[in-house]
């Protein structure tokens, strides 16, 4: 098995050694099934572990490591190595190439859309499957890559679902008439920002978007951006952020005393993260986001949450850690069915994926012809008492939604 995985590297000696090992294994006349699953499956997990988006990258790593540990206890042998993109999109390819050179049979990654597309090129060239843990730009599965399996929603789908769900919240007493969209100007932000406008019009929300303000992904200060948003007088602020910029935006909104009727992040990671609620305290409350989220009512999710609480008592199990966990579930499921560590066998098994028992909301994990899982649910979350809670859809809402949001000056 390790012979198969090592054949990815170019050393002739290693290939010969692997061939000898394979021949020796055959001679032992073990059943094929046992032979194939005997060695560990080498997985290269590409993540931003340093740089501006390292915070969620590290959260994804924790979820990934927990899954590896839990599956190891079930006898699944995995050899996982983590590769850092340093939060630079162009490093996705370098990291994936390194993983493939090191003999990984499958690559998981790369948290960021830009880095994922970059990594996909390396995986495509080497014909090694890439299981996308997080990466929301639509183009990831639209560029003809054959090795991609994305267990994450495209941002326009998240936005369309979220906008529809948000529309359902409009009622007497909560009828914002105008909105301002703020988004980071990287691949994820541009794609999501564009999707918001389209989904807004398609859903007929009836809230006019007055301005769209973009900002640099490495911005250290968003006071000007928030001042511009405030100047529009919009009653709804729709930020498309990650955690650092979400903190900067809310902090500035408080300082500039800009209290709209609601802050709603369509497809916006960040506000559900512990870093956000810790930094903002009472000012974190009432922030709404629509993102894929785990379904806490499922038995498997409960088991994962219990184990998480033991392993990481100071960390929150959120979108990043949950998709990190589920990415390993997808790989392990394929590995079990493929009974092989050969990338081509894993690819075939991934195509046949049908996992009903998983942790995220939505239907079974399946991949369509483009490698997209179309069954991911997108609930509406709101920060309440500095914790993210599901407020929609009604069937698994944990609390009623609280709108309009409490003005900053009235938060005791």
């Amino acid at each position, binding site marked *: 098995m390790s012979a198969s995985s090592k054949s990815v590297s170019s050393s002739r000696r290693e290939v010969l050694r692997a061939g000898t090992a394979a021949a020796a294994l055959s001679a032992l006349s073990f059943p094929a099934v046992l032979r194939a699953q005997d060695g560990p499956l080498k997985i290269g997990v590409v993540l931003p*572990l*340093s*740089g*501006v988006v*390292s*915070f969620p990258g*590290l959260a994804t790593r924790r979820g990934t490591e927990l899954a590896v540990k839990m599956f190891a206890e079930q006898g699944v042998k995995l050899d996982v190595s983590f590769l850092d993109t340093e939060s630079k999109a162009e490093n996705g390819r370098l990291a994936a190439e390194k993983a493939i050179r090191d003999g990984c049979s499958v690559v998981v990654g790369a948290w960021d859309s830009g880095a994922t597309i970059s990594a996909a090129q390396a995986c495509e060239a080497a014909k090694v499957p890439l299981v996308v843990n997080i990466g929301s730009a639509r183009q990831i599965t639209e560029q003809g890559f054959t090795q991609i399996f994305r267990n994450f929603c495209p941002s326009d789908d998240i936005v369309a679902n979220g906008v529809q769900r948000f529309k359902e919240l409009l009622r007497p007493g909560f009828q914002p008439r105008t909105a301002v969209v703020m988004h980071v*100007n990287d691949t994820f932000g541009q794609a999501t920002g564009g999707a918001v406008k389209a989904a807004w019009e398609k859903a007929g929300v009836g809230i006019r978007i007055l301005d769209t*303000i*973009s*900002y*640099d992904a*490495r*911005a*250290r*200060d*968003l*006071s*000007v*951006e928030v*001042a*511009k948003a*405030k*100047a529009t007088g919009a009653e709804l602020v729709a930020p498309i952020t990650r955690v*650092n910029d979400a*903190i900067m935006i809310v*902090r500035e909104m*408080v*300082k*500039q*005393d800009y209290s709209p009727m609601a802050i709603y992040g369509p497809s916006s990671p960040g506000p559900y993260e512990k*870093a956000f609620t*810790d*930094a903002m*305290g009472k*000012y974190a409350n009432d922030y709404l986001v629509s993102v894929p989220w785990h379904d806490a009512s499922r038995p498997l999710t409960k088991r994962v949450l219990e184990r998480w609480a033991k392993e990481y008592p100071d960390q929150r199990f959120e979108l990043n850690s949950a998709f990190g966990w589920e990415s390993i579930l997808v790989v392990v499921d394929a590995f079990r069915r493929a009974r092989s560590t050969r990338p081509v066998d894993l690819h075939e098994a991934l195509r046949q994926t049908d996992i009903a028992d998983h942790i995220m909301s939505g239907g079974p994990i399946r991949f369509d012809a483009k490698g997209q899982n179309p069954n991911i649910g997108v609930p509406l979350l709101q920060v309440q008492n500095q914790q993210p809670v599901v407020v929609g859809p009604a069937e698994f809402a944990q609390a009623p939604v609280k709108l309009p949001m409490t003005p900053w000056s009235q938060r005791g």
Partner: protein
Amino acid sequence: MLELYAGVAVNGLLIGVIYALVATGLNVIFGVMRVVNFAHGEMVVVGMYLGYSLWQFTGLSPLASLPITVALTFAFGYGFQLAIGNDFVSRPQHVQFVLYIGLGLAITGLHAMIFGPDPRAIQGEAGFDVYRIGFLRIDAVRLHAAAVALGVIAALSAWLRWSMTGKALHAASENLVGGQAIGLRIDRIFALTMGIGVACAGTAGALLAQLYDTQPYLASEFTMIAFIIVIIGGLASLPGALLGGLMIGLAEAIAAMVLEPSAKSLLSYALLILVLLLKPEGLMGRIAGRRA
């Protein structure tokens, strides 16, 4: 609309004063030693981590713990110059370049090892305080930080102008051989200079730690800002550093407002090019020549 523009301009000017303190450190080092400190941004980040760590372990705000930050960063700069830097002052510029780039990489690596890559924020209710002056809402933390930075620049300028040691630094910057001839201990003067330069960067860093999240990888932006300010204001000119800092702070704020927030550096670079074309010695600088 007036409220919007005035608020943005004030914010830009306040951050510009802190930028000016960063550039002052670079200017002092270059003015006396004719050495370009490419690790200056890293020294700002050292100050940020000191401000953050002192807040975390003692609960003191970076303003309250500023004397400790100043003392530690000064000692670091002084010690570095005596132990290593002085051996490189008379060496070719490309050798100095390698030294300071290496130092910068080492500092960044150490930060990443000690603190990890996560952004570190100084949290607290005080971070949300504002002053209201008429229709203006001024960020209290930013105002305090800018006031301290301005005070440090003024005190340093006065000390350099009127104290005996300050005059010695001037003498060394004007005529190194002459300074040695009248008995100046040049190695100590250089160590003092580096100590002051690093303390300026560290002080600015501690002040910025209240405004920005601290990460190991912020250094290159601070180095770049310091260079732009120094070139615009004039090499080795402290009033030039202040003027340059204010201009860059204001330019970034106005560009973000008028153009596009993600293009806020555009105007700063346009200013830089304009100054290089029209007044290459900087707005308040003199034509630089080789020191005797």
